[in-house]
């Protein structure tokens, strides 16, 4: 195993731990992006460019957009709920 591969594997382990440890969903989405990037590097150094390309499009474009929009919707509903309560 080369140094690059060991570095990529440890990067994935670190970023995955980071996703679990982050508690705020909004920052978790960003850490998830970093995790996706580290996974992309892993696939790339293990000579699977096709998989790396799939991972990069899903983790940088596909997933975050959906999570961020869902978070916005949840946040809005919570705010509307708080506004209604005092009345």
């Amino acid at each position, binding site marked *: 195993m080369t140094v690059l591969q060991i570095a990529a594997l440890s990067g994935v382990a670190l970023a995955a731990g980071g996703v679990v440890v982050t508690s705020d969903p909004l920052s978790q989405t960003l850490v998830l992006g970093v995790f996706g990037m580290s996974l992309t590097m892993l696939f790339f150094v293990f000579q699977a*460019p096709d998989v790396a390309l799939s991972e990069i*499009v*899903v983790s940088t474009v*596909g997933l975050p957009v959906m999570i961020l929009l869902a978070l916005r919707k949840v946040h809005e509903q919570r705010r509307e709920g708080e506004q209604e309560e005092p009345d």
Partner: protein
Amino acid sequence: MSRTVRLSLFALAAAGFGLVLVLGFADLPAFGHYHGVYGQILDGVGVTLRHATDLVTALNFDIRGFDTVGEEFILFASVLGIMLILRGLREEHQEPSQHAADEHMFAGASEALRAFALVLIPLLLTVGVYIVVHGQITPGGGFQGGVVLGAGPLGIFLTGRYLRMKVVTPRPAMELADALGAGGYALIGLGGLIFSGVFFKNFLPLGIPGHLLSAGHMDIASVAVGLEVSGAFLIAWSEFMDQAILVRGDQRE
């Protein structure tokens, strides 16, 4: 359950999981020492029999083309599910003034971000088309290129003009792309059945390896998948955006 009980339960589970993982990985062949016969045969025939220099695409769209039909319809069905669950409900209504929503949406988009999006959109579209049509030559193919293609119109959202994005990517056109791509891919398989006698057998001229139009039906299959994926992702994103930006619960009080 108290914190100590949970932690000790976790320690027990983690130790067991770790043990199984170490035992399982111990006997794996080292990286680069693959011994499967099927894979080694495929490695040899990709260029000679299929004229495709990217073996992964040859596998996806030709040798195991039937598997990709299933994968395609997984995406197709999930997007149908999103449309069904996020359909307009009776007590919901869309923001009355679409113009107002257009203007105040994402007001924080700076001039720099808008200019950047202008550069980004054609770049994404070009890269997307490139990845889709070069699937059989270089890494990539219909799925990866399709998501990049779909991300192009998403750049309009970055400029703060969500409703303009809806103008550029009208829903009926996206649904048509999704359906045509999914159906077209299955039809390519039928073409193999009709012209070669086997479902998904390559029935088009193979051409010269490394050329744009080579490897038989893989190019067309890649374009079909690209259409389907870009349509599917744009439908999913716009459903989510409708929910986040336009749809409101009933506010009668």
